[in-house]
């Protein structure tokens, strides 16, 4: 990695950080737990790096480390998106004129 590549990466990092800041400050406290599991699932994008390490056949060590990394990242991708969806499915608005003891229909 050259220093100009480093600067370019820093650009991307800084801008993405700003976008993240602006977007995430608007997430209500109501959804802070889903936000956590969602960002966790998204940052499991390190799967992309793991895939290359596991499949490039550069060395036995790298392949094995890559395999464990692919496994861990996949756990977060699959588990993270599923659990976020499971949580978000539970949030619903209250019924307007419905008697309260009835199960609100989704």
């Amino acid at each position, binding site marked *: 990695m050259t220093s100009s590549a480093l600067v370019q990466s820093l650009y991307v990092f800084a801008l993405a950080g700003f976008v993240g800041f602006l977007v995430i400050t608007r997430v209500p406290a109501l959804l*802070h737990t889903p936000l956590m599991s969602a960002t966790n699932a998204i940052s499991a994008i390190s799967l992309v790096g793991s895939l290359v390490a596991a499949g490039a056949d550069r060395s036995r060590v790298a392949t094995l480390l890559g395999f464990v990394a692919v496994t861990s990242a996949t756990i977060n991708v699959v588990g993270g998106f599923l659990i976020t969806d499971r949580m978000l499915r539970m949030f619903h608005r209250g019924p307007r004129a419905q008697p309260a003891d009835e199960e609100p229909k989704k």
Partner: protein
Amino acid sequence: MTREFLIQASYLASSVLFILGLRSLTHPDSARRGMQLAALGMLIAVVGTLLHREIVDYRWILAGLALGSLIGYPMGMWVPMTAMPQRIAISHMFGALAATLVGVAEFYDLGSGAGVGHAQMAALGFEVLFGSLTITGSLMAFLKLQEVLPGAPITFRGQNLASLALFASGLGLLAWLVASPVHPGAFYGMLAVGLAFGVSLVLPIGGADMPVVISLLNSYAGLASAATGFAIGNNVLIIAGALDGASGFILSIVMSKAMNRSFANVLFGAFGSPQASAGRTSEGLAVRAVTPEDAAIQLAYARKVIVVPGYGMAVSQAQHQLRELAALIERNGGEVIYAIHPVAGRMPGHMNVLLAEANVPYDKLREMEDVNPEFASADAVLVIGANDVVNPAAKHDRASPIYGMPILDVDQAKNVIVMKRSMSPGFAGIENELFYMPATSMLFGDAKQSLQKLIAQVKQA
């Protein structure tokens, strides 16, 4: 050329989808669809990566994907909502583990540092240092929340000094490596130091401070992913990592503010705080206990009831009974709303998820600023397993360790019923003045059982 273009296009598409997905979380109605877009983004990025020219052998990849899905599916679908804090903590460990291992593999493949430039070493170093401390830190948080380790701070003499020394030596090794990358010993030493630092950082932190710690670990896991992106020159990793890092950082600031504490105080403040908590004592004061029958009468025909849930509700898993009681009050024509303190529970948003699971509509869940003016007009306030977040000492008692922490103004209410296991002080070891106020009556017992008794009584009323 076309292959490289396709790969980069897939990364661009997934970056955009990730940002759109997070943006959708600003409202519960759009959130689900948005997160499905983000999941699609992940799929696109993975498919794009599989086109990579360097990938020649798919066997280990497929094995990893299969094994990860096999473990990830139950972790997504079967983990109960009450176990969410530890579930989130362990997922930070997996994320950091993946980032760290990619960093180690990269270092190893580049001739253990021989083929690594200074800038790349800086990226790899950050990746491995942040990653390793997040691995063990998250594991400790998981073990505490799972109650394998005691939730109370685990401390020993000179612990802060030891932690700081570990952190300083980690940074020192990192600086050395950036200056001269061909030092495998320093690299693996830094990895070990990072792992040890993660343990010593989280062990002394008590259960009530977990919301801050989980958020910080969330941020670190993201930063480790972003550093991976720097090291292997991949923008989508940098973007997703920055988003995660920003999110965790913002959450930890929100949590610290809600406790009126600084990061430094949360991370290094475990020493002697419970003992030093002078505050006021309860000597000469008496609490008024109430029977479920009397409490039920107060609730049955109340026009407006505010419920204040806390960690105690999560522990006894009483959210479904709470919802049942609320339905009875609503059927009698009353209104029930829920006052959610930002640090109630063990992670950001903990109470909201539990109540949503019990089918409480989200428009009944109110944030602290919105609900505080309403306490004075409520007929009854029901405090379930919450303690420090309703302690009026935070407002006026300068000697109290929680002085200055924003609290729910339950002390303004005309009639307060506190459900509590016993009179033992809360986690912080602080006496709660609210329990001794004339308007307060105490309903002792397990929250779930007490609620069941209340439900039975209100049905008869």
